[in-house]
């Protein structure tokens, strides 16, 4: 006993001495680089970072925003390429980004996060329409509409955000091509926490979504991957939809794989009239009219109504048929998934279908409506209803597709100066200037004679015009056009021939 005590004392003393020595020797060791940068690179099968074609470049100026400052003021001052760093504090505002290549980056200090606080009065936290936008490291809470809403911005990167009760949606990119949504935590959303609407080439990975009506929704979108997400305690877990009545009418090529889709039994608190308000609480995966959806490698457990539900528009509630949208879910592929304890407390509609097919046990996979060219890899593993038309899949994995994100950013295209000039000249200048006819402004011919080889002269004049001619009104300034566009228009104007 005494020997044991001694051993312990010696050990404690040695440990304390070790810590002191260690602290003395190391001090602040941040300057020391440990580990070879190439340790994990160039591995076989590597396709590069998911982030390679998304997000802001971060090559410009850094603007720091601290508690009490306005993020929007920094956005207004920012040029494409700039980074806006947001330090811990509470920011009660709507930030809108109508320019390209901006990084909005929270800085977490000692566990303190920058918080965007909507107080249930503000509509949206971040609205962007620019391409190449990054939104990261923010805690966003208590807005009425969205935490992050994108309208037509391509190449977006939304990551590492903690989003709590931001109203209708959490992260909602719409009309975007090429976007990555990763490592976000979202809860308390009354529709879909992550809602990809009318977009192409999207990757949703490594997010946690819980206590929402819908976890993750892919709607009227193509070439999407939803993988490695933890989707639990929502009303419905993962949705793949064609919603009728929208201007883009297809959903196809969606891979839903390697997600944990667990206990999505939260009572539906969706907004009356919304599509998700019709989702029964206890739904794991719901595919409505989406085509070429492949479901692989998910852990789907504890969803009380159904594990996987595939339906067409005719059998879905709250849906008005759209002649422009194909109502059926075709080419569905259910590969290997881990399914356990789903459908244990299901709805009368499913019970009735079960009786009809004389199926015993809890239904884990249900298809209602026609579903052409669909398949399941191992139907005997699960209790299924409505899958008689499904064949056996001729493929076992989607692993060869690592992502549908693009190799190069979308729409970073150069406009030829002549096209730019032509579009500005006919699209704007021609409202007042005709080639050889007097309109509101003097004819182009007259301007050509005046400025022959001097497009810069035109640019200077149209930027801040002065009254020149008694027989014409003063020209309004064209400074709203960028310098490039003004020059292109001037050059085009000097060479136009009719």
């Amino acid at each position: 006993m005494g020997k044991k005590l001694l051993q312990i004392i010696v050990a404690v003393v040695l440990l304390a001495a070790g810590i002191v020595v260690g602290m003395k020797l190391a001090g602040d060791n941040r300057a020391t680089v440990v580990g070879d940068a190439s340790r994990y690179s160039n591995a076989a099968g590597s396709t590069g970072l998911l982030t390679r074609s998304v997000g802001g470049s971060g090559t410009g100026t850094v603007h720091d925003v601290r508690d009490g400052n306005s993020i929007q003021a920094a956005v207004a001052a920012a040029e494409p390429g700039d980074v806006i760093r947001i330090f811990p504090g509470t920011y009660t505002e709507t930030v809108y980004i109508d320019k390209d290549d901006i990084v909005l980056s929270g800085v977490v200090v000692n566990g303190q996060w920058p918080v965007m606080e909507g107080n249930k009065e503000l509509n949206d936290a971040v609205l962007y329409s620019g391409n190449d936008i990054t939104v990261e490291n923010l805690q966003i809470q208590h807005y009425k509409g969205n935490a992050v809403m994108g309208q037509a911005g391509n190449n977006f990167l939304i990551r590492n955000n903690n989003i709590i009760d931001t109203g209708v949606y959490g992260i909602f990119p719409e009309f975007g091509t090429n976007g990555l949504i990763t490592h976000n935590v979202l809860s308390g959303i009354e529709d879909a926490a992550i809602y990809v609407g009318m977009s192409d080439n999207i990757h949703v990975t490594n997010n946690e979504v819980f206590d929402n009506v819908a976890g993750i929704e892919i709607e009227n979108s193509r070439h999407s991957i939803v993988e490695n997400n933890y989707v639990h305690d929502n009303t419905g877990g993962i949705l793949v939809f064609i919603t009728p009545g929208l201007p883009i009418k297809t959903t196809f090529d969606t891979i839903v794989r390697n997600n944990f889709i667990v206990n999505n039994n939260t009572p539906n608190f969706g907004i009356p009239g919304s599509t998700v308000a019709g989702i029964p609480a206890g739904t794991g995966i719901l595919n409505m009219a989406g085509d070429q959806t492949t479901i692989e490698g998910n852990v789907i457990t504890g969803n009380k109504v159904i594990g996987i539900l595939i339906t067409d528009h005719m059998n879905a509630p709250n849906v008005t048929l759209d002649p422009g949208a194909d109502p059926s879910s075709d080419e569905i592929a259910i590969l290997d998934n881990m399914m356990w304890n789903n459908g244990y407390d299901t709805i009368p509609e499913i019970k009735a279908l079960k009786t009809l097919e004389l199926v015993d046990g809890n239904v884990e996979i249900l298809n209602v409506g026609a579903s052409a060219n669909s398949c399941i890899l191992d139907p005997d593993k699960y209790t299924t209803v409505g899958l008689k038309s499904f064949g056996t899949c001729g493929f076992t994995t989607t692993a060869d597709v690592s992502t549908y994100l693009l190799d190069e950013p979308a729409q970073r295209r150069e406009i030829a100066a002549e096209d730019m000039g032509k579009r500005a000249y006919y699209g704007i200048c021609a409202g007042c200037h005709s080639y050889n006819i007097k309109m509101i402004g003097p004819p182009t011919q007259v301007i050509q004679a005046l400025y022959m080889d001097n497009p810069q002269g035109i640019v200077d004049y149209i930027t801040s015009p002065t009254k020149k001619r008694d027989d014409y009104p003063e020209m309004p300034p064209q400074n709203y056009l960028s310098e490039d566009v003004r020059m292109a228009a001037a050059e085009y104007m000097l060479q136009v021939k009719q």
Partner: protein
Amino acid sequence: MSKAPSNPRAHAGLFLGLVLSTLVLSTLVLSTLVLSTRALADAPAQLREHCPPGFELTDGNRCELRTLYQNYDSLQYAGVGGPRTGLPSARDGFSPQQIDLGRYLFFDPLLSADNSISCASCHHPDLGFSDGRARSVGIDGAEVRRAAPSLWNVAFLQSFFWDARADSLEQQMVGPLYDAKEMGSNPEQLLAEIGGNATYRALFRVAFPGSEGPPTLEQIYYSIAAFQASLISLNSRYDQYAHGYHDALTDNEKEGMNIFRSFVARCAECHTPPLFTNQQIAVIGVPEPEGRQLDAGAETTSGNPGLRGGFKVPSLRNIAKTAPYMHSGAFDNLRDAAEFYTLGRGHALPEEEKQRMTVHWHIWEPELADDELDRLVDFLATLTDEAFKPGIPAAVPSGLAPVGVIPEALGPKPSIAGLNET
């Protein structure tokens, strides 16, 4: 000669038209009666050889649309998205002569049964190519069921009429041309009127080179479509903002823009930029003006009960110019129209319709504050651009007064006493 807003010759034409059964004859007589008027002296002898603003004349004598929006793409070529998104595909490629001929036809009351009204009587350029009325009025002062939609930017539309029942401008225009309550004409009369007019015969030969014989219905429709498709409005202050000049809008207007596109108000979900319509049919549960029966809208034309009370989402470009609002003019001003969307799903519907209609999922209770509604109205006014508004011809080939009956909103009804002024 007086510059009074009244159009005495329209009424001379109307009067004589009643007395004399054939219009060719009435025009002849009319011409003899008022030989001294400028209208005839100005009758167009030729058509423009240059394109209207917004178009480049390209090889093959085609007017092709040019706009800065062509610098941008749009997802799936759908022409919907955000500020810097490409437009839906446009109808263009008409010749300058066809567009100009269409302009004469558009403003010529010769196209109506009694030569009293022209297309412009309900689609007047000074009223946003609408007529300022809740419901339009045709010949004989008969009121029709719905409001005249604006014609700005129709080149980009895929369907026409409030209930989206026509797929082309040509298909659309036979509605008002031949509807007994609207222009009241018929194909035979139209061919006789146009074909019986020497000026038109000459102009059609210019606009359709190589074509023999009198003008055809197809050529008439095509020319009017050409003119309508030339009505481009894409240079508003909003557009300046969209192209990158953020000082184009005031703080209030920007706030309104953010409310407009927020997912609380959700305006932009259906009135989607750059055209401010997604061209879909939406059931929003709009009320009929007092004392009017419910208009089932697209349910009737599509046979789809889910579209009961559904109408095409209109573009909001130049919306500040086209009060009153909605398909039958339920709201006099934009403030009231905006407020409708915050009062709750189906709030304005009769009880039995609340159960029956499938109101669009975007109609909810956004609880917009009063000042938010004011900001929305501020923003909507930034969508005004009439820089490319075409001129009304000083004279039209029929010799009738251009436009014919003008909308009340533009002034008092022309009186028959005006005849004395000639």
